[in-house]
């Protein structure tokens, strides 16, 4: 279509001399701007341009500040300034004048003023505050154009803090008779929703009205908001599905005014927006998906015209079809569509086809098989972008059989790619594949070598870390481990003998660690030789000091034998006086340990990486030392906060952090309190300082807490391996020989599909090596969820993968039926009598609305809210903290949707209103099945056990025992269940109370029962739930908080990461904690915040947060031992997961 604008501009100067251009626009060749532009085009050098512009700017500067300049002249000046800024010259002096112009000019001048403002400033610029008044005034103007301009500038940028000032006015505009105003108002609200979602919470129902607006433009605008909201919480809007479907049907059917057509396709932007919304709504939800099948089918059918825009719609359609609950008929059509894309000669369509394939192959790898020859062609495409996209696709279909070919292709690409972002991304993928599917040691180490040398120092730091972890943790067979390590050592020695100067720092670090740990595996290798090679690294110029300290550590591990010690001595002498303290430290260590081999063996035992470090947190080994010291007259140890109290007391300094808000109450509460240390306070005036080290001792070293952080981290890192083995490993389905055969046959057939000339054979060879293994895979799992893991390097403990994969299968449970009210509304959506319709149905509608709204936006404000991790509507992965440990091996696979639905209907009536956690399967024993969930009530936590009997006879004498070290379990209900009739479900309820806090609380149980025939049966189970389920907000005032704070003796401190997503970081972080952990934010004062919560029943825990040096210094106190420690763990997790 470029012919529309095609215009030869061969002779720029000759055109410039023309006075006017054809068309409505006037070429202002006589204006000052015209002169400026012409002046610039005549220049030859950048230097001259600079001079000219500086001269221009200084003349502008003079004029704008002159009081005699009229607004009209100002407008002209502003246009010229915009031009100068566009050329890259700063003109910040004019910003204030732009605001002035927007404020004082007449409509036309105002327009330029607003434009200049929107181009010069951004929403965080301080001058923008000066615009608020102007915007307010214009929003109230009777002049439509002024209102439009104000709304336009508001939707582009507005200071977040000032939103409340204009919000009522913008809201009012939603009822404006003119549709353009309504549309812009909706978009302004959308912008507000993006930058400050809680500010617009209360107007969600107005969004619904905008959705039902008679003007399609306004309705389209409202979809932006809905897309955003549905993305955040698809469950809250299921009831709107039918409405969206109806709208789409009407659009596709061409019911909109011709105006909205784009190249005779009806409202493509609207269609695509709706398709996106539908795919979000239909994801993992069969009943919702069913509603949209018909319209999707129609969309696929209608979009036949050969134009980019129809392809854009088709692409979105295909994505939608593959996202929602599958329907084979639609999948077939969508697959055909993808075929059209991939086979298209147009390169843009090919690109999109590859992208669609990438999206789809996870579910349907067969599709890749169909297009294998095209994929091969794309792999050799001259356009790197196409190549890159193809690699992305290949990454998704990698398996143990084709991994070598695919990784080779990726590395090939890496060597030619110059883009850092691509390199980082691709290197990560190669590392992932290598770890997952590596065929043998040699290949693995060599691939990783390439990854490290190509990825250099840009790659994600977790790649080398996880590589080293893999090496040190090893796999199932000891012999294999040894071989792998030995191979790595060999390969690194030869690398170091080559040109180590070219290797990136990260790689050198990996090398030195591996050599330090494992070079002893090679018997013929002299440690002195390795030491010398390592020492050579130290002399390299580009070796960073971080690398040097890795090298020195490695040398420390190796220095033995006569010549080894002498090398070590040389090195330690050279670095013993280094300016870098870390290096000096390492050099000292090296020196001492190389001389004392006995000590070295104790400090750095060989193969220690395998043993988890045991930390004696009670420091009992110091008992003797302590009693000696006490006997010698030393003062007993006091925790830091007690010392501070004492200090504050004696010095009578007023250092209380809450002085701002509670100077009086604080001091009054102190006078009559019992000091936890039983020390008498000399003065009641001063309060406790929560953070004395920060406040008072800025000049001193902040040693307070440093040691504790270390201890804490050791504690936490130790935590992980303890929990992880408890998870159930999904047994990896190994491919049977018959399937293998199937795979082979499938690719031996494929070459006959596409008979192409020339380098044919080569390509087909490539194809068979690339697509091997796909055929069989597809028959195993059409939905592609359970990846067959013929994984070589299976980690001993693998994160939460099992937990998340099961939770993915479990999905939403409550689906509200499509509302007839909305149907009605939507059928009339485009009619003008919508308002009356709305009025008639409003009671019903509003009740529905309030339900929906409660689900969406309650999260931020209500204190009785459940944490996200336990709401049944939340996204699949959130129950990651409460996974099941079953004694029985197989049951993990089957908790499928209908069962979940079934069981939730058995919840006791009084609980069915409350949110419950996912119902998890505990164990199956013959025909008896146990499932469990927990329900959070405001002041208790209930455990619900479902006993379902699927046999034909009744099960009798059922006895369920639940017990836990950390909990007090009491059975609720009149009498425990004793009998379950055939094909029915019985429910037991237990109330849980925490006796002793722990990060995760584990329940173990046993069920015993008697079938009519046969001997008594029993089965064991266990269930884990996070401490957070027992946490409730504690509403206290700041004064009460102050009193409580001083009374509690157990505490812990830690620095947490701050979250800064646009908002003020402290508030944002506290909001996340509040949402995830149900804490109550008592008050935020400047950089400090105080938060309170309680552990059921009534065991308080207080938290003091302070923003310090980019982190959140948190101090927790509670009367319960261990509670602060456990809670800080969950805080960490909550913030990490964010």
């Amino acid at each position: 279509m470029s012919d529309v604008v095609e215009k030869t501009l061969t002779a720029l100067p000759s055109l410039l001399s023309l006075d006017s251009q054809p068309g409505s626009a006037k070429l202002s060749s006589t204006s000052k701007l015209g002169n400026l532009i012409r002046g610039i085009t005549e220049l030859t050098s950048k230097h001259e341009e600079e001079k000219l512009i500086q001269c221009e700017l200084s003349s502008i500067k003079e004029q704008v500040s002159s009081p005699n300049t009229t607004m009209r002249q100002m407008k002209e000046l502003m246009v010229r300034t915009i031009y100068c800024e566009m050329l890259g010259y700063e003109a910040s002096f004019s910003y204030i004048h732009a605001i002035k112009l927007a404020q004082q000019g007449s409509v036309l001048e105002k327009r330029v003023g607003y434009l200049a403002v929107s181009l010069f400033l951004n929403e965080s610029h301080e001058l923008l505050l000066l615009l608020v008044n102007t915007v307010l005034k214009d929003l109230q103007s009777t002049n439509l154009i002024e209102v439009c301009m104000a709304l336009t500038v508001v939707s582009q940028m507005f200071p977040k803090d000032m939103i409340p000032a204009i919000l009522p006015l913008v809201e009012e505009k939603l009822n404006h008779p003119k549709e353009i105003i309504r549309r812009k108002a909706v978009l302004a609200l959308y912008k507000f929703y993006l930058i400050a979602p809680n500010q617009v919470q209360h107007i969600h129902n107005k969004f619904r009205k905008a959705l039902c607006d008679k003007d399609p433009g306004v309705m389209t605008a409202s979809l932006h908001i809905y897309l955003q909201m549905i993305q955040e919480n698809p469950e809250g809007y299921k009831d709107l599905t039918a409405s969206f479907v109806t709208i789409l049907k009407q659009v596709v059917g061409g019911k909109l005014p011709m105006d909205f057509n784009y190249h005779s396709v009806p409202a493509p932007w609207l269609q695509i927006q709706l398709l996106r919304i539908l795919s979000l709504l239909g994801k993992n939800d069969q009943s919702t998906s069913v509603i949209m099948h018909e319209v999707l089918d129609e969309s696929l059918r209608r979009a036949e015209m050969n134009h980019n825009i129809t392809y854009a719609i088709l692409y979105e359609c295909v994505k939608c079809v593959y996202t929602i609950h599958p329907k084979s008929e639609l999948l077939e059509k969508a697959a055909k569509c993808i075929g059209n894309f991939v086979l298209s000669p147009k390169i843009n369509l090919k690109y999109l086809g590859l992208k669609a394939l990438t999206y789809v192959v996870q579910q349907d790898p067969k599709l890749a098989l169909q297009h294998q020859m095209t994929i091969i062609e794309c792999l050799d495409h001259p356009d790197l972008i196409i190549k890159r996209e193809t690699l992305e696709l290949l990454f998704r279909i990698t398996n143990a059989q084709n991994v070598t070919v695919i990784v080779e292709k990726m590395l090939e690409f890496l060597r030619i790619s110059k883009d850092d972002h691509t390199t980082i991304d691709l290197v990560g993928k190669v590392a992932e594949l290598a770890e997952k599917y590596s065929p043998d040691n040699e290949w693995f180490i060599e691939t990783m070598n390439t990854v490290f040398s190509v990825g250099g120092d840009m790659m994600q730091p977790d790649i080398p870390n996880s590589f080293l972890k893999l090496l040190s943790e090893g796999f199932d067979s000891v012999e294999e481990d040894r071989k792998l390590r030995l191979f790595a050592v060999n390969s690194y020695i030869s690398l170091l003998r080559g040109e180590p100067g070219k290797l990136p720092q990260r790689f050198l670090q990996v090398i030195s660690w591996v050599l330090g740990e494992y070079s002893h595996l090679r018997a013929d290798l002299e440690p002195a030789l390795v030491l010398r090679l390592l020492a050579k690294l130290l002399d390299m110029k580009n070796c960073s000091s971080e690398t040097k300290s890795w090298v020195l550590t490695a040398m420390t591990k190796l220095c033995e034998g006569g010549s080894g010690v002498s090398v070590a001595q040389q090195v330690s002498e050279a670095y013993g006086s280094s300016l870098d303290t870390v290096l000096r430290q390492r050099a000292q260590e090296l020196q001492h340990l190389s001389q004392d081999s006995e000590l070295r063996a104790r400090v750095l035992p060989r193969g220690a990486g395998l043993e988890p470090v045991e930390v004696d947190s009670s420091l009992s080994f110091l008992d003797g030392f302590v009693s000696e010291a006490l006997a010698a007259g030393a003062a007993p140890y006091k925790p830091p906060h007690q010392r501070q109290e004492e200090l504050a007391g004696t010095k009578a300094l007023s250092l209380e952090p809450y002085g701002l808000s509670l100077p009086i109450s604080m001091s009054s509460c102190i006078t009559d309190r019992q000091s936890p240390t039983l020390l008498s306070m000399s003065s009641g005036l001063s309060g406790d300082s929560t953070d004395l080290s920060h406040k008072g001792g800025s000049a001193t070293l902040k040693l307070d807490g440093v040691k504790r952080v270390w201890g804490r981290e050791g504690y936490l890192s130790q935590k992980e391996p303890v929990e992880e083995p408890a998870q159930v490993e999904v047994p990896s389905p190994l491919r049977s020989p018959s399937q293998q055969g199937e795979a082979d046959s499938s690719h031996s057939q494929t070459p006959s599909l596409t008979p192409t000339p020339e380098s044919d054979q080569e390509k087909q060879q490539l194809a068979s090596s690339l697509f091997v293994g796909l055929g069989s895979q597809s028959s195993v799992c059409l939905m592609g969820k359970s990846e067959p893991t013929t994984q070589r390097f299976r980690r001993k403990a693998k994160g939460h993968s099992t937990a998340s994969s099961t939770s993915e299968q479990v999905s939403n449970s409550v689906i509200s039926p499509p509302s007839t009210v909305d149907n009605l509304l939507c059928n009339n959506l485009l009619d003008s009598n919508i308002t009356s319709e709305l009025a008639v149905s409003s009671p019903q509608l509003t009740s529905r609305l309030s339900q929906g709204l409660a689900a969406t936006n309650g999260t931020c404000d209500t204190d009785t809210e459940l944490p996200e991790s336990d709401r049944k509507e939340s996204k699949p992965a959130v129950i990651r903290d409460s996974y099941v440990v079953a004694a029985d091996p197989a049951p993990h696979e089957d908790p499928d949707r209908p069962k979940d639905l079934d069981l939730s209907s058995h919840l006791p009536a009084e609980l069915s209103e409350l949110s419950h956690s996912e119902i998890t399967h505990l164990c199956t024993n013959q025909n008896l099945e146990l499932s469990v969930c927990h329900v959070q009530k405001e002041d208790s936590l209930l455990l619900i056990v479902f006993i379902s009997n699927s046999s034909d006879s009744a099960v009798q004498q059922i006895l369920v025992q639940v017990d836990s070290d950390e909990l007090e379990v009491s059975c609720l209900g009149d009498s425990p269940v004793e009998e379950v009739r055939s094909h029915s479900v019985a429910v037991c309820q237990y109330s849980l109370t925490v006796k002793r806090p722990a990060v995760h609380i584990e329940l173990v149980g046993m069920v015993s029962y008697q079938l009519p025939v046969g001997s008594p049966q029993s089965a064991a189970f266990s269930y884990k739930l996070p401490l957070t389920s027992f946490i409730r907000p504690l509403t206290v005032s700041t004064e009460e908080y102050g009193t409580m704070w001083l009374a509690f003796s157990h505490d812990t401190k830690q620095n947490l990461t701050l979250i800064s997503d646009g908002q003020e970081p402290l508030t944002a972080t506290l909001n996340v904690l509040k949402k995830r952990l149900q804490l109550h934010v008592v008050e935020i004062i400047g950089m400090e915040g105080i938060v309170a919560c309680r552990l059921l029943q009534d065991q308080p825990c207080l938290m003091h947060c302070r923003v310090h040096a980019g982190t959140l210094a948190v101090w927790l106190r509670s009367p319960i031992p261990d509670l602060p420690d456990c809670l800080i763990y969950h805080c960490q997790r909550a913030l990490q997961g964010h």
Partner: protein
Amino acid sequence: MMRFLLLFSRQGKLRLQKWFTPIPEREKKKIIREMTTMVLARQPRSCNFLHWKDLKIIYKRYASLYFCLAIENHENELLALEVIHRYVELLDKYFGNVCELDIIFNFEKAYFILDEFLLGGEIQETSKQIVNRCIESSDMLQETMEEYMSKPAF
């Protein structure tokens, strides 16, 4: 969501810039430089899409002018291409057979049209007629200001 739109000439001279998210000035200059070099270096008959950091760059050349639009990763590339095309159509309708010079000398008009078409990084109005009506009604003020001022608001 769209992140930014840049118009530049074959010589790499910037003709129009619109940033939909706040970006520091220095960063903007860097991006402009990167975009021009990246796009101008593209071979003919390559696809119109590029990867850049975590964004997709969609570009198209109309006569001597390059239109370059950055979108988020999950957005639809073809649709973005049509966004560019619709903008060109709008310019064309307004200027009547638009050329680079129209945009150079009347860049503020080009901005006004853009502001009616895209708002805050999203499509605001896709109907060609409505966008043009908006611009023209504001433009008309230039001629009939007096008359307009005496009238009550519409």
